[in-house]
């Protein structure tokens, strides 16, 4: 089996990603479930790059004409899901930061010594 330069390039990227992932899983820096999903995905990437004819079989199974189409469609679907999850996470963190900002402002306001005589009364 002779690999082209671009195949070697992809394999290098996937190989590095998998090695890094395994290390993160070993040190428990990421949850095992999420690590296994990425491992399956990048493992699939390695197989498809090393054995491109498998993508043609996948295309046949999915009912599209070419193996490349099957890869591109799958990648777009997966990336869309990732973007959605990323936005959702950003949204959640944004809301948490907002709640924290409010809580801090209220705490400082309550703790201020001057009860605000000029403002027309105490705070509680």
């Amino acid at each position, binding site marked *: 089996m002779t690999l082209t330069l671009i195949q070697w390039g992809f394999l290098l990227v996937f190989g590095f990603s998998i090695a890094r992932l395994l290390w993160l899983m070993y040190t428990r820096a990421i949850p095992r479930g999420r690590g296994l999903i990425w491992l399956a995905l990048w493992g699939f990437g390695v197989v498809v790059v090393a054995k491109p004819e498998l993508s043609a079989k996948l295309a046949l199974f999915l009912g599209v004409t070419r193996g490349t189409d099957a890869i591109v469609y799958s990648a777009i679907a997966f990336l869309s899901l990732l973007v959605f999850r990323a936005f959702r996470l950003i949204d959640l963190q944004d809301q948490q930061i907002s709640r924290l900002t409010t809580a801090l*402002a209220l705490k400082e*306001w309550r703790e201020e010594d001057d009860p605000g005589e000029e403002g027309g009364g105490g*705070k509680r």
Partner: protein
Amino acid sequence: MNVAVIPAFNEATVIADVVRGCLDHVDVVLVVDDCSSDQTSLAAKRAGAQVLRHKLQRGAGRATATGLQAALQLGARFIVTLDADGQHLPSEIPAVLEPVQEGRADMVVGCRSLNRQEMPMMRRLGNRFANLWTWLHLGVVVSDTQSGFRAYSKLAASQLPLTARGYEFCSHSLAEAARLELQVQEVPVTVVYTDYSRSKGQSFMTSLRTLGRIAREGLRS
């Protein structure tokens, strides 16, 4: 107790006048300084307001939510919110508060468009588009969805989940009020358009962002 809540960001030059004007009509004025880089907090405090400071800039919506929470902690029965740039007349606070004080409404929106001759044409068009957009995405019909001059009963202030950050909170709070079946009433208010208040208003890009966020809130609900 009546409390005025004023969300403010870099309003040091005008905030004192707004605070002093409000103190003639309410018991306490709360200014929520949304991480200003100028002397907004100091100016507001010297004018007689109680000041809450956001450590991070979170937007007008979040600043209003902080102010409403503080007002509730003070034991406020009626709360009025108005912009810090001086575009709203504090002398109209009694008129905006009246429907909630008389129990006719849980929430009052001071509508600028009901006094339409005062609003510049571009603002009026933008406002109408925002109203239409809000109706399309959130299903709420109000003459001036983007007005910050509002009054809330204690019930409304405690029940409304004000999670929106920026100016989209204006539309979002109306949608939430409708969902909670709160009584919303509109009252005509005057708007003072000075060079300063025009420069502090929503820019074109901010408006686009607000419309996008309203659409997103619509998708969420």
